[in-house]
């Protein structure tokens, strides 16, 4: 596939270009003079100069990511630029993909949102494909994401808005993958973002935990306060500090993304592990499973050994466990039972737990746990343990049965597939 991309040097553009080239596609960047990477083929294009670029005729797709990011006063006529691009695409027989936003509405509070809406209508008429992502995050710090990371790093507290504001995040690499997957096939509007909206404060906490790697206390901030701040600062200063983006965030309508993602057959990576390296994800899995079988905090050597096992025997593919199961052994019991019932063929949860058990046993900590106390024990202690174990197991099994309609066994996220 040969793609022409505007905004190739931007936050999303860089990831899209990298992914496309790694998959063997050719990329032509439509960018202002001075490409960022010497090996990237490029052609001059500027949003503020709405000249219709002459595209080579073997371009299959034109992906329009470029958008104005400065103050709205200096905003170019993005609609004209988009129309010019669409004409160029039609001339060379390429499909047109437009990256819009969740904020796209005719009555959006920001010019950004309104402008996106206008362009969307033109694209729709021309038969192109519109992608509406939620909050794009992850990857190198750039764009709005970069601003959020910077803020979380600098602020001493994390604002917790009340009433809570919700976002529907999507990892930038997932977004790039979606663009490539649907480039030649899709049209209409595809909404991309976490199907279950996540509170912005929780999102910030994950950024603090996994990206910035600092702990920050939460500080309640009334949502109203942000809106007043925005009004007091006025449009210019509010844009400069990013408050306007925050305001548009608060006023976002939730998107229904489940159907669109299902149609694409794409599974977004879960938020809990999205900002973590694969190794960290595996370490979390190791700690969860080993604690479950050992009834105690596993020593680091065992964690590393489990991770090495997954890397050697399963190619490093992690189990995607619900977050609660890595914290509560009882929850993992229920999950273990539920999984055994739901899918007889996919024994992956069982087999990983069994592997964790074997790894745990082959250790000095394991000798304490797996071999009955090497001092003589009163028989009643043994009977107590047995009865307790049976009762807990039966309870967990019962809960697994009841919870079956709600247990959503997630498909393997695309990112984790080898």
């Amino acid at each position: 596939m040969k793609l022409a991309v505007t905004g190739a040097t931007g936050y999303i553009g860089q990831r899209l270009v990298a992914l496309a080239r790694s998959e063997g596609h050719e990329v032509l960047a439509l960018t202002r003079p001075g490409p960022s990477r010497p090996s990237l083929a490029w052609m001059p294009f500027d949003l503020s100069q709405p000249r219709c670029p002459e595209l080579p005729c073997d371009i299959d797709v034109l992906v329009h990511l470029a958008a104005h990011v400065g103050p709205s006063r200096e905003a170019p006529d993005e609609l004209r630029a988009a129309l010019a691009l669409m004409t160029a695409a039609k001339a060379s027989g390429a499909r047109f993909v437009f990256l819009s936003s969740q904020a796209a509405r005719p009555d959006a509070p920001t010019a950004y949102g309104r402008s996106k809406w206008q362009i969307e209508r033109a694209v729709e008429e021309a038969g192109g494909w519109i992608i509406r992502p939620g909050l794009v995050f992850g990857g190198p710090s750039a764009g709005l994401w970069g601003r959020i990371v910077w803020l979380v790093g600098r602020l001493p507290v994390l604002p917790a808005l009340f009433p809570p504001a919700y976002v529907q995040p999507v990892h930038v690499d997932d977004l790039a993958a979606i663009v490539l997957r649907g480039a030649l096939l899709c049209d209409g509007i595809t909404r991309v973002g976490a199907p279950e909206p996540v509170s912005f404060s929780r999102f910030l906490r994950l950024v603090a935990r996994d990206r910035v790697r600092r702990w920050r206390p939460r500080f309640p901030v009334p949502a109203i306060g942000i809106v007043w701040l925005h009004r007091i600062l006025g449009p210019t200063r509010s844009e400069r500090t990013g408050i306007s983006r925050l305001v548009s965030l608060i006023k976002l309508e939730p998107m229904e993304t489940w159907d669109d993602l299902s149609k694409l057959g794409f599974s977004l990576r879960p938020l809990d592990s999205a900002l973590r390296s694969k190794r960290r994800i595996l370490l979390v899995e190791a700690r969860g499973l080993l604690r479950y079988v050992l009834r105690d905090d596993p020593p680091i050597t065992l964690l590393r050994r489990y991770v090495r096992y997954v890397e050697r025997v399963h190619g490093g593919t992690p189990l995607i466990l619900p977050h609660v199961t890595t914290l509560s052994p009882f929850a993992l019991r229920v999950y273990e039972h539920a999984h055994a019932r739901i899918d007889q063929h996919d024994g992956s949860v069982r087999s990983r737990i069994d592997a964790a058990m074997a790894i745990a046993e082959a250790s000095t900590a394991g000798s304490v746990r797996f071999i009955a106390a090497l001092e003589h024990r009163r028989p009643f202690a043994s009977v107590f343990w047995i009865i307790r174990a049976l009762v807990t197991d039966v309870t967990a099994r019962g809960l697994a049965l009841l919870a079956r309609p709600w247990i959503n066994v997630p498909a393997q996220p695309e990112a984790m597939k080898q």
Partner: protein
Amino acid sequence: MSGQPDVIVVGSGPAGVSACFPLLDASLGVLMLDGGATPDLEPPEEAFLDWRSNRGDQWRWMLGADFVALRDRGAVSPKLRVPGHRYVFEGFGEANRIVANGVAAVGSMATGGLSQSWGCGIAALSEDELSAFPCPKHRIRDAYCVVSRRIGLSGATDDDLSSYFGVDAWAAPPIPADELHSEMLDRYTAQRNLHHSHGFRMGRSRVAVLSRDQGTRRACSATGNCLYGCRNRSLYAATEDLHALRRRAGFRHEKGHVVAIGVGKDGDPWVEVAAQGGRERLRARKVVLAAGALTTTRLALSALSIAGEVRLESSPTAAFLLWRPQHLGRRPGNGFGLGQLSFVQQSGSCRAFGSLFSPTGIPLSEFVVRLPFGRRSGIDIMRSIMSSCLVGNLFLPGSMSELRLAVSSDGDLLVRGAHGAAVKAVMRELEADLRRAFRRTGWFLVPRSFTLGVPGGDLHYGASLPMRASPRRGETDAAGTINGLPNIHVADGASLPEISEKPHTLTIMANAHRIGEEIAAELTLDPRRSLNKE
């Protein structure tokens, strides 16, 4: 030794080594060929519970480098997963082009063969059972005596299984039993008549494990490392005999995988060895096949161009768990990990044999995965009762098995089979009989623990080229010579006339010894004397 050997022995397991001694005694030149695999893990130094409590690197013996123990979880027997025994089983299927369908077709490319990883169970056939052999019974009896004294047996005691095992005349006293087994035997003895009336007999296990020092091998010191490697060398393995053979004049041992056999126009047999580079044909006056029933049968069927299926016998097997609540909370200790008590249960017209052993040396995970509980509860439960449990196994006569072997046109060995309805019915009856028998001694057979093994899972393969008084094509005569392949003898389980429920290794070794004697007699009477006479 230079030049052509008198005899080529294919396989260095118990049969192969047993055939060699009479040949060397007759000053014949012997070349032994085997798969050559050797251990890659030293046995642990400390006793089992000590290295489990103290060693940080115990994963080497329990998981193995590169997590070998966690990879193939399909095999039922834990010993097939123990990293230290990996070398015994590795590569056999590929090297012998085995295609198994619903059957365990396991063999060894190791020096010493499957005896490098076995339970050391032994027994001698009764006079009645020896009737099936087309040779004078006393020849085998004498061979039993020679072999038993050489390898070292223990377990001789005056109990209800003395005549069943039939080896007490050649065996040392038993290794001391642990408290669980001793108590069970006492309780059995107190009610022995009641047990007999139900067709149940019990006694000490007779095993090929030293209870007294012998040569450089030391007596069992109950370290509990039976599954992981015995530093005392108390357990018999064919490599022990190989040490002795290597010191004898006229003996040569080389690594070489025999891929074909045949007989030349002059009646002299040859073997084709796959060596690095290509294939080499080696000639001798006699060839002895002792590579294990599966491999030996494959070589024979290919050489005879027999395309059809051949019957293979193996003992249908089962395993179960026994529990005695009175022992709950008992402190586990290091002890002998192989069979301590054996039993015989008559079930209708068929007789089953089994042994009991302590589960201490077996990883708890092996048991927990069989429980129907979540793992956390499974571990809680199993660890609480393990020290008051015993593991038992059970074998039925090989005549009840339904296994078939055939060599395909591509040269693959196809093995297929299933448990017939008769086997399943008998096993169900046995489960009930044993439940009652053990209940009488105060032990519970844990519900749902009685598990039927995969056909062939006992690894007691045999009787595929059975010896008969008048052998037909594909059978062997009293000296093990294959009908249709003169001067090629079968000395391993393949030539046994039948596989009973008794452990068959000692019988294979005695038969191999006898065949060695026959070959030696034949060759030394021959005017073409050996070039090597020292």
